[in-house]
């Protein structure tokens, strides 16, 4: 079975280490917060200006002056801080944020990522994604392995306008966990019940498969 969005988030949560400051993108990445082990200390940064972001507020306690980058109402945990956009992106570009998790429309085998524009069709903008991918040392992409037509989103070269070049190191899809090393995808783990052959078929870019590929457990 391919992973659900929650399971993708659950698998990525294992990459979050004690003491990390983490920026979560919109969509699947936001779900990662729900699966981080509670015996480690992690702080979530939202680029609109909060460090120490907490869960959604209880009904009736929402504050219009307290939102995340997805414009959702949130809470601030004890120890949280607010700051302006300039300082927020200073944290990001200055590499003070340890891990960035974001979604993608396409990723190429040399680590390029495209996630902000489909020419003539969808132009929402890059938001903070270009700043994040250009600066972060540690980027994990959460995405579906293929699009609605079954075409691979892990490509030799991206076809859509790029968000950043040679920046993605790790990808967690509904089918597999992959790493990018020396311009190629490397298969690390497979979703429960998904064969290596199925992953090869769903990957357009060069895919290296070395030895026995472990099956993820949930």
């Amino acid at each position, binding site marked *: 079975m391919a992973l659900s969005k929650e399971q993708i988030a659950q698998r990525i949560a294992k990459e979050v280490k004690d003491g990390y400051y983490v920026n979560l993108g919109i969509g699947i990445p936001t779900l990662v917060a729900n699966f981080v082990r509670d015996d480690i200390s992690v702080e979530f940064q939202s680029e609109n200006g*909060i460090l120490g972001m907490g869960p959604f507020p*209880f*009904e009736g306690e929402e504050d219009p002056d307290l939102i995340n980058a997805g414009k959702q109402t*949130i809470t601030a945990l004890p120890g949280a801080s607010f700051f302006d956009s300039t300082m927020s992106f200073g944290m990001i*570009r200055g590499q003070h944020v340890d891990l960035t998790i974001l979604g993608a429309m396409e990723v190429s085998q040399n680590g*390029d990522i495209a996630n902000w524009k489909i020419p*003539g069709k969808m*132009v929402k903008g890059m938001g*903070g994604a270009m700043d994040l991918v250009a600066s972060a040392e540690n980027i994990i992409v959460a995405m579906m392995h293929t699009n609605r037509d079954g075409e691979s989103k892990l490509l030799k070269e991206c076809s859509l306008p790029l968000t950043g070049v040679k920046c993605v190191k790790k990808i967690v899809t509904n089918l597999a966990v992959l790493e990018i090393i020396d311009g190629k995808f490397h298969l690390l783990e497979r979703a429960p019940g998904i064969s290596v052959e199925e992953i090869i078929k769903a990957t357009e870019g060069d895919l290296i498969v070395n030895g026995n590929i472990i099956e993820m457990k949930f």
Partner: protein
Amino acid sequence: MIKKTVANVREACEGIKDEMTFMLGGFGLCGIPENIIGELVRKNIQNVTCISNNAGVDDFGLGLLLKKHQIKKMISSYVGENAEFERQMLSGEMEVELIPQGTLAQRCEAARSGIPAFYTPAGYGTEVAEGKETREFHGKMYVMEKAFEADFSFVKAWKGDEAGNLIFKGTARNFNPAMCGAGKITVAEVEELVPVGELDPNQIHIPGIFIQRIFQGEKYEKRIEQLTVRKRN
């Protein structure tokens, strides 16, 4: 004490004209200068360029100006929530420059601080960097970005005093501080305007030197864009 107070939003917006460039604070609908936007709509000024992270929603925020076709050009980082915006952009009725969010903030900050340009890694190797100077520092490539030039900065703060000192609340701070002093004239609207001496100087986020006009907004709707809550157990 140099007094910055004006009586109301009409006085605060004196001198705005067609074809001008405005900076407007806010992230989504959070921390936007609601009263000033209302005045821009009422005065029906035309062909303006707006520098703002987002473009509001169809019936609130900058969406109100969009609906009346008052905006010639938008400079933003994310415009996903506005159907009318997307229509005007794709049909070519309105010019749009999409730039990375950190670059947008820094171009405001640079304008305020007398820095004509700076280098950032954001957008290198993408269409955002096309036609721009690039340069290598310590083995990494950067794109040169220039400070904005704007006629007015319109910001919204939580509290302010008669000297123009400002305090922001929560994530309503966002782009507002970087825009203070970045335009030729900065107009601040606040929820609560207090006499000088009432704000603790230790707590002030933006000193009054960057503000030319300040007034207390008549009312604030503070619309929530995405209401997300959890149930009590």
